[in-house]
């Protein structure tokens, strides 16, 4: 009946980490110091729980241990006494209260701080993964093709910016909330898609999406992002399998239960009658999956959804998706005119290179297609789809 204490600490860490970190950082305004204190608290638990047993309320115990670590830090840095006292007092009150009623929920505040528009857009998803889910810098770096030290440095700088510039750990006021929530959703979406469909961090991102949709139960966009993450995981190639584009995957291996759940979430979200970018993206996934899994002809629907997406949230990615869908639906001329009307500023954007290559193949210009695919493969080297792209380039005759 004895569960190894290490496992209990591990479980407490997984469950409580973000919850505790959110509280500590909100109180101190210092994310890095809060992380250090929490880390020290978990280490202390590993030392003392095997001897003294697991405390009745682990969260309260961890919070007190973290508070003690922070106090030591204050003493070393000789922080002004007033501020220190205030923080310690508040943490003590919290530890006491949490022993009775559990910890207050502050993870949403942490998410809004990490995805603040004053932080570099590319760093936001990285910071969210690192702080809220504790994904190590090395794993994050692998997905963004950055070295461990470069990624660690980027994260340290972002945390320092939060502290120094006074980015609040707070839920934005109603007038700002929509825009700020969009930043949070965007950060999670970035984490979901960075490794190619269903990349290495997709599972963590899917967990974040489900957490966010629980924290914002009335937000149809948060629900849609969760549905989208379920679709991504449900149809991704099995571990060890090489990457293939969606249309070349075997629907037999897909997780039908997750797909149905995602479809239901999407239908419920639509009831709010507040269409948004992620509802449209998820609806496109849903229609594409229905097409491939159930053999239904949903091309008109897919194309219509893409046009609405481009209308509502124009982006290079959306236009590329539209052009690719037009070609798959056999409407090459329309795809050509969509691509011809595009600003080639995004020439180095891999999805654009891929659709342009696709069009070149259909126009019987394999040499041009090869060049485009090689360029895309180069940009995606290290990601699962990179190998697939270079194989395709190799297969084309020059």
């Amino acid at each position, binding site marked *: 009946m004895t569960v190894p204490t290490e496992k209990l600490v591990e479980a407490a860490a997984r469950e409580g980490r973000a919850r505790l970190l959110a509280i500590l950082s909100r109180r101190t305004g210092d994310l890095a110091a809060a992380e250090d204190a929490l880390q020290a608290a978990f280490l202390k638990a590993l030392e003392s729980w095997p001897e003294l047993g697991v405390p009745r309320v682990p969260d309260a115990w961890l919070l007190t241990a973290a508070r003690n670590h922070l106090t030591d830090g204050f003493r070393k840095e000789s*922080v*002004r006494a007033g*501020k220190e006292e205030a923080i310690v007092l508040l943490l003590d009150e919290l530890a006491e209260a949490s022993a009775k009623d559990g910890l207050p929920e502050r993870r949403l505040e942490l998410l809004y701080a990490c995805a*603040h528009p*004053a932080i570099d857009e590319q760093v936001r998803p990285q910071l969210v993964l690192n702080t809220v889910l504790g994904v190590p810098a090395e794993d994050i770096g692998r997905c963004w093709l950055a070295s461990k030290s470069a990624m660690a440095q980027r994260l340290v700088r972002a945390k320092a910016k939060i502290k*120094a*510039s*006074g*980015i*609040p750990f*707070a839920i*934005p006021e109603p007038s*700002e909330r929509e825009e700020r929530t969009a930043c949070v959703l965007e950060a999670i979406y970035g984490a979901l898609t960075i490794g190619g469909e269903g990349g290495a961090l997709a599972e963590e991102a899917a967990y974040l999406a489900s957490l966010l949709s629980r924290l914002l139960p009335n937000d149809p966009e948060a629900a849609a992002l969760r549905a989208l993450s379920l679709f991504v995981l449900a149809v991704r190639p099995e571990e060890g399998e090489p990457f293939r584009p969606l249309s070349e995957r075997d629907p037999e291996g897909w997780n039908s239960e997750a797909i149905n759940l995602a479809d239901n979430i999407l239908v419920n979200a639509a009831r709010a009658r507040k269409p948004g970018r992620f509802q449209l993206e998820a609806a496109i996934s849903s229609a594409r999956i229905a097409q491939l899994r159930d053999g239904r002809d949903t091309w008109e629907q897919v194309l219509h959804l893409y046009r609405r997406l481009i209308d509502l949230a124009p982006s290079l990615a959306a236009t590329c998706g539209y052009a690719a869908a037009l070609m798959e639906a056999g409407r090459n001329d329309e795809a050509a005119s969509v691509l011809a009307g595009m600003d080639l500023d995004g020439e180095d954007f891999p999805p654009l290179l891929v659709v342009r290559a696709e069009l070149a193949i259909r126009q019987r210009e394999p040499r041009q297609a090869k060049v485009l695919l090689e360029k895309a493969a180069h940009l995606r080297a290290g990601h699962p789809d990179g190998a697939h792209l270079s194989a395709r380039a190799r297969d084309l005759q020059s």
Partner: protein
Amino acid sequence: MQYLLMIFEDEAHMQRSVEEKGFEAYMAPWMAYTEEMEKAGVMAGGNALEMAHTATTVSVRDGKRTIQDGPFLDMKEQLGGYYVLDVPGLDEAIKWAEKCPAAKYGHIELRPITNFDD
């Protein structure tokens, strides 16, 4: 927290609007903005600056002083003035930056002021 709110604007643009509207009409939104800040109790200081060409840049290397005519950075948009804001955090500072008359045609940079007591 205190922030330095720096106002960067194209001086040619500023001169044009003074000529077109007249000095008082140009200044009116600035006066209103300053007054609003004062009323809200967030203004800890601020000034308008003379044109960038009046700047003098000084440096000392190996004990030798160099004096140069003009600003250190020669940019299309120049620092034309500043405020010192005293607000709870960045979100409030952003709100004030957004309201600054020059935000619509120039750029506003917010820099936290270091607090050595902390």
